[in-house]
């Protein structure tokens, strides 16, 4: 998996690509921590290029959301494939995350 960080006005977009498992959850947590430390507290996680996620990836997402909310920030998730959406539903975490179909819609939701 790779993580690309871009800025869309006030919103930081993290574009994840590939397999989101325990190995890559470490990189994700580190990335989120760095952004929080730099006070970039409005984020969208673009999952449209994630082809696999397991409980480690889900846990990392939960941790990221908790960290951002703790600092009074906001975080959205966008672009779930049907396969990844299934895992969100299996763990019932789709009820907790703010999920949008596209990055553009997620970014627009901040305004």
């Amino acid at each position, binding site marked *: 998996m790779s993580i690309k960080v871009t800025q869309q006005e006030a919103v930081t977009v993290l574009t994840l690509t590939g*397999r989101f*498992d*325990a*190995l890559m959850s*470490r990189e994700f947590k580190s990335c989120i921590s760095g952004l929080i430390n730099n006070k970039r507290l409005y984020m969208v996680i673009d999952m449209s290029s994630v082809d*696999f996620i*397991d*409980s*480690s990836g*889900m*846990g*990392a997402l*939960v*941790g990221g*959301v*908790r960290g951002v909310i703790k600092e009074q920030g906001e975080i959205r998730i966008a672009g779930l494939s049907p*396969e990844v959406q*299934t*895992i969100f539903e*299996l*763990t*019932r*975490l789709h*009820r*907790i995350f703010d999920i949008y179909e596209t990055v553009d819609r997620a970014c627009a939701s901040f305004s």
Partner: protein
Amino acid sequence: MHYLLEIPAALESLRIAAPFTTAVLQELPEIRDRDRIIRELTLVASEAVTNALCHGSVTGLTIRLEYDLAPDAIIISVTDYGSGFDLETVVPPDLVLFQEGGYGVYIMKSIMDVVSYEKTDDGNYLVLRKSWERQ
């Protein structure tokens, strides 16, 4: 058919286990909902290996990942040589608590028909079984 992979007890071994799992699951017979079952078994295998690497691994040792594939069932077995854990004390995730962990065992139990775990002096054995109707 029996398939065996022995990998170092390090998180980087996920990059070895994943393609091995993909290759083995392509050998599943033509069954109803085959694509969905393959996706679920891929997830379960990742959970089982991660569990062994995170909770049962000891640096310098290995873990064993085995698949026993029959026309009507698959058994996934993971053996590690670490301190192990107690399967029965793992509680289902509580959404109110918004917890980061505890989803792996929940996922395995949700998808598989049988999930068993045994700690012995020779290693810790996680065994997962799923069956389907023969066609």
